[in-house]
């Protein structure tokens, strides 16, 4: 088991290197350069070239890549922003924390809403308790998350004036972003959990449990649920990508200083150090969460646990 975790963590290294490589590759295809953007059209080409050299932008692609990796690994230095001239790390770290907490709230909230409703709709299939939540989930699945956010904004800030429309100063300002981030994946979780649960209820071992004389309550909550949750766990992990997308949208929509909106903003300035460092951090977080999901899966599924244990031998 430990060996498996270590293997997976070790895979982070080629993974991060690959991510940086892909990003540098993509960047190198871009027309325009940061110096020209910073200095404006009025500056002479010589000034621009000079600034590009200072920034280290003019180096060949591979050299830039190797240098970057070296600095990152040996000196834990993510470089300096082209745009603000600040240390990239200092600039993104506080914003990173905001984004990660937003995504974390999203995961927790979407699971807390989506999974219980998914179970309930499956248990009460064809009743009103199934149709209404399922219908709502169906429509939410067809609404872009920013539209949902705008609807919230329109209703709670503009019309009702209950909640602030931007910032993260108080708890109440976190409510709408959290909802905007959580609702779409919650709908997704509901639909997935429902079908998983329906599948699980049909299994033979559920019939065995009934034949033992177990109550419907035990049958569903003890036998069917545990098995139905296995694929749901993976699904929650898979929804993380969408959650990060949702977080970026929420940051823009509610003017939250997160890393996603930072990257979107800096794209216009071609601020390579910030964009790359931000992406690396998010990717690492993403990979670690996926690993956690796998571990949780292994924890709740004895068959997978046994497989990992065997990897050890």
């Amino acid at each position: 088991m430990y060996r498996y975790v270590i293997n997976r963590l070790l895979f982070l290294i080629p993974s991060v290197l690959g991510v940086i490589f892909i990003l540098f590759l993509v960047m190198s295809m871009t027309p325009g350069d940061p110096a020209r953007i910073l200095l404006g059209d009025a500056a002479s080409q010589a000034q621009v070239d000079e600034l590009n050299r200072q920034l280290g932008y003019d180096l060949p692609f591979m050299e830039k890549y190797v240098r970057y990796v070296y600095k990152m690994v040996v000196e834990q230095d993510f470089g300096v922003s082209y745009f603000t001239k600040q240390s990239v790390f200092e600039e993104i770290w506080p914003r990173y924390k905001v984004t990660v907490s937003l995504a974390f709230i999203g995961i927790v909230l979407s699971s807390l809403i989506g999974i219980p409703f998914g179970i309930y709709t499956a248990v009460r299939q064809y009743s009103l308790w199934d149709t209404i939540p399922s219908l709502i989930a169906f429509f939410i699945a067809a609404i872009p998350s920013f539209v949902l956010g705008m609807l919230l904004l329109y209703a709670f800030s503009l019309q009702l004036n209950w909640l602030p429309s931007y910032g993260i100063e108080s708890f109440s300002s976190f409510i709408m972003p959290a909802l905007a981030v959580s609702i779409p994946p919650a709908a997704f979780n509901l639909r997935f959990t429902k079908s998983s649960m329906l599948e699980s209820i049909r299994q033979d071992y559920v019939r065995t449990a009934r034949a033992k004389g177990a109550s419907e309550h035990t049958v569903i909550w003890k036998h069917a649920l545990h098995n139905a949750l296995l694929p749901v766990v993976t699904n929650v992990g898979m929804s993380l990508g969408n959650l990060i997308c949702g977080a970026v949208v929420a940051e823009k929509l509610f003017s939250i200083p997160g890393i996603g909106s930072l990257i979107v903003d800096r794209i216009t300035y071609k601020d390579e150090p910030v964009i790359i460092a931000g992406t690396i951090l998010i990717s690492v977080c993403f990979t670690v969460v996926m690993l956690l999901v796998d571990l949780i899966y292994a924890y709740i599924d004895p068959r997978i646990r046994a497989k990992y244990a065997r990897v050890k031998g």
Partner: protein
Amino acid sequence: MKNDLILDIKNLRVIYQTDLETVEAINGIDLKINKGKTLGLVGETGAGKTTTALSIMRLLPEKTGKILSGEIHFDRQELLKLSPLEMRKVRGNRIAMVFQDPMTSLNPVMTVREQIAEAIKLHNANLSNDEVDQRVETALSMVGILPSRKNEYPHQFSGGMKQRVVIAMALVCEPDLLIADEPTTALDVTIQAQVLMMIRELRDRIGTSMLMITHDLGIVAKICDDVAVMYAGQIVESGTVFDLFTGEKRHPYTQGLFDSIPSLNTRSNRLKPIQGLMPDPSNLPKGCCFAPRCQHCMDICINERPKQVIEGTHTLLCHLFADSSAAPAPQEGE
């Protein structure tokens, strides 16, 4: 006489109803099991054997399965009239069931101990955890599994071992009736022999009555006291094993089953199988259901449902025997 019956099913009719069709799964069967005896329910796929078992347990699929009519008397209780709560107290406690496929009938995420303990605790709420554990261990060793394996998960057991666990689980409350639905079909022949012998021995030791569902007449000959042959949702023939295996009269379908089995003792070049296929249960013929495949089919068979012919313990559902003189000489099984 009446008090000797552990199970008495009268005129049971069950259908499966979907939007597309109505399947007449069981069409008015009568079935009796004497206390301490084993009844073999024989038939091919789709004959309605499993539906019969699920009706007794009242575990038919809720949405589609419907019991149209009939009574199921179990030891002076009418099961179909019990409340869900009362029925739950019967299930697993007084009537237990072993399913066909041991690979899927155990919960993959619970240990064997948890699953057996659940069966105990459901019906013995007053037992302490230690006592429950004790009984789990006894149950496991009873079916020939080392009690030290109790904390393992089903995937760590082979197919035969899983079926032993299922049997342990079914017998742990010492039920009055055990329903075994093709318990050895998924197993290899040497393992089947082990499991069958174990079932027979435990049955005798606990003194439980048994409904043995199978398609294998060999298993019937080895294990059962009485037999009922099922075809297209009806019991076409029933009686003691001797009535069926050595009796004077035999239903043409039963005869066909015997003739379909290649014999180990004699060498023959051809089998004499029943021609054709079982009728579509959503569209049964109006006369005798077996008529389209029967060698002795008469006009009356096509138009009229046959009535039961009762001769002592032997019951036949066939026009051939309505008038005893018309009966053909029975053909030998071999």
